[in-house]
């Protein structure tokens, strides 16, 4: 591609009599402080303005899908942790949901409650650290990020006590959970959840009115409602563009229909970085509401249903999806009667949300490209798989 044809269609180069300005091509990444992993953006700059951007990924490709097609259903459960390593609980859940559809296992009620609790805690972890990273991309010296990590630590402690690991939880099983939570865990969780709103108040005070953050994020990286829908964007990013769509409400999977919660979304006028940031901030409050209801309503009972010891489903095709913190996470499985899936396909929210990066970045400054990428909320483990 020559530089003349590669310029974005809606951008005009300023041309002067006899003076030609040339574009500066910068390869941002794969080792760049703000690409959230090994991701590369080939950016063409006119001064500081982005006139073209090519995302390049695949540096973290680990053959996730093909690996899973060559091992038993259960054995790929720990690999789903590594997709979006911030949210291993929801990854587990999406996979478990798909597999449970294959063999139709009843999930005990206590397990369902615990699943909801884990998923919403995961949402808190993800959103709170995403906001931290996002402000870090804006150039803060990590202060919001470290506050976020301080709170995330408390939730990770809960995860560790329940599952034995802080990030690679590997906690969900077909038909329930691997083990029950230890004694006193629910009280500790209640304590963490009760104290979380105080932290959110402080966080909002630190960030939501800051003039610099407001002027940096508003009007930057606009994503129109139409483009968001046609590109298949899901999750908070879609809601920030003004579409009211939440799989927890649409599918009512698990026991989400028992809880009262609201889904924040913007009026869809701009759909910029500020909307994406605020929608996540507001979603955390709703998650706390769900958590309080779930922790209040949970009863005793088994946590693992009547799962067969050898998981060998009949030939079928299923698609299981959950509202992961980053968007719709789906697993598409084709069983052919053997203990291994014939086809195993992940619909990663990060990758599909990333597809509109170029459209959002064109015409913005190079500093904006960084925060637009931050506001999409990608995890390269999930993008590259």
């Amino acid at each position, binding site marked *: 591609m020559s530089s003349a044809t590669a310029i974005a*269609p*809606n951008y*005009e*180069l*300023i*041309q*002067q*009599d006899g*003076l030609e300005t040339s574009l500066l091509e910068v390869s941002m990444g794969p080792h760049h402080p703000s690409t959230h992993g090994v991701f590369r953006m080939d950016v063409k700059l006119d001064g500081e303005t982005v006139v073209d951007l090519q995302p390049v990924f695949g540096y973290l490709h680990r053959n996730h899908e093909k690996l899973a097609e060559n091992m038993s259903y259960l054995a790929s459960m720990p690999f789903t942790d590594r997709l979006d390593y911030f949210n291993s609980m929801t990854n587990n859940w999406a996979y478990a949901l798909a597999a449970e559809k294959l063999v139709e296992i009843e999930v005990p009620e206590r397990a369902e409650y615990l699943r909801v609790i884990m998923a919403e805690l995961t949402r808190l972890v993800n959103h709170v650290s995403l906001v931290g990273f996002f402000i870090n991309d804006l150039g803060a010296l990590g202060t919001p990020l470290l506050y976020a990590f301080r709170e995330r630590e408390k939730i990770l402690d809960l995860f560790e006590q329940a599952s034995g690991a802080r990030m690679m939880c590997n906690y969900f099983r077909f038909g329930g959970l691997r083990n029950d939570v230890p004694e006193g865990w629910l009280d500790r969780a209640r304590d963490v959840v009760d104290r979380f709103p105080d932290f959110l108040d402080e966080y909002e005070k630190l960030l939501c009115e800051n003039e610099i953050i407001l002027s940096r994020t508003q009007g930057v990286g606009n994503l129109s409602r139409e483009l968001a829908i046609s590109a298949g964007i899901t999750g908070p990013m879609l809601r920030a563009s003004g579409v009211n769509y939440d799989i927890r409400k649409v599918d009512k999977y698990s026991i989400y229909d028992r809880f009262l919660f609201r889904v924040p979304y913007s009026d869809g006028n701009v759909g910029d970085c500020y909307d994406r940031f605020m929608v996540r901030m507001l979603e955390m409050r709703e998650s706390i509401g769900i958590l309080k209801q779930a922790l209040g309503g949970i009863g005793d009972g088994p946590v693992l249903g009547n799962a067969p010891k050898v998981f060998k489903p009949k030939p079928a095709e299923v698609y299981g999806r959950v509202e992961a913190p980053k968007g719709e996470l789906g697993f598409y499985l084709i069983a052919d009667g053997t203990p291994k899936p014939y086809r195993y396909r992940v619909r990663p929210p990060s990758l599909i949300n990333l597809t509109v990066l170029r459209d959002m970045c064109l015409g913005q400054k190079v500093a904006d490209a960084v925060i637009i990428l931050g506001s999409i909320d990608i995890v390269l483990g999930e993008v590259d798989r």
Partner: protein
Amino acid sequence: MSEQIAFWMLSAIAVLGALVAVRKRNLIHGVFALMIFFAALSGLFLLLLAEFIAAVQILVYIGAVGILLLFAIMLTERVTGDDGRRMTSRGWFWGLVVAAAVFVILLLPAIQELPPPEAAQAIDPSVKELGHKLMNPYVVTLEVLALLLTAALIGAVTAAQGVRIPKEEDSSE
């Protein structure tokens, strides 16, 4: 004594800087050599107790003119030039003659050993005096100059904005 040493050192630096600035093919190197020359000149002014002029020398010539040159050079294509090619010109002889003539004319007052003009003794080279002079007898000149510079600035901005060439395809944008 120490003034003497300082004078010779500064003079040597100034001459060297000027020579390098003229001889270097690499434009950026040349500009920086020019700045060294300016800095040495400012030092010479300081030796003459003309501290305001010295400060202005740095402020204007290094801080503004030098940076302007750098920006201009950034826009040119072959910044580094090629040092391999020697710098020659057909008119070097006449250039030398003119340079010698200017040198002699500049040197004449020193050679003739004229008595210093009376006014020179009366000048108190303080910043305050300078300020009063600028604001009292020469205020009109100053204002006219300021106006001229402002006009130049606006002109530069207009020239730099250039002409936007509209694209044929999407005129709606």
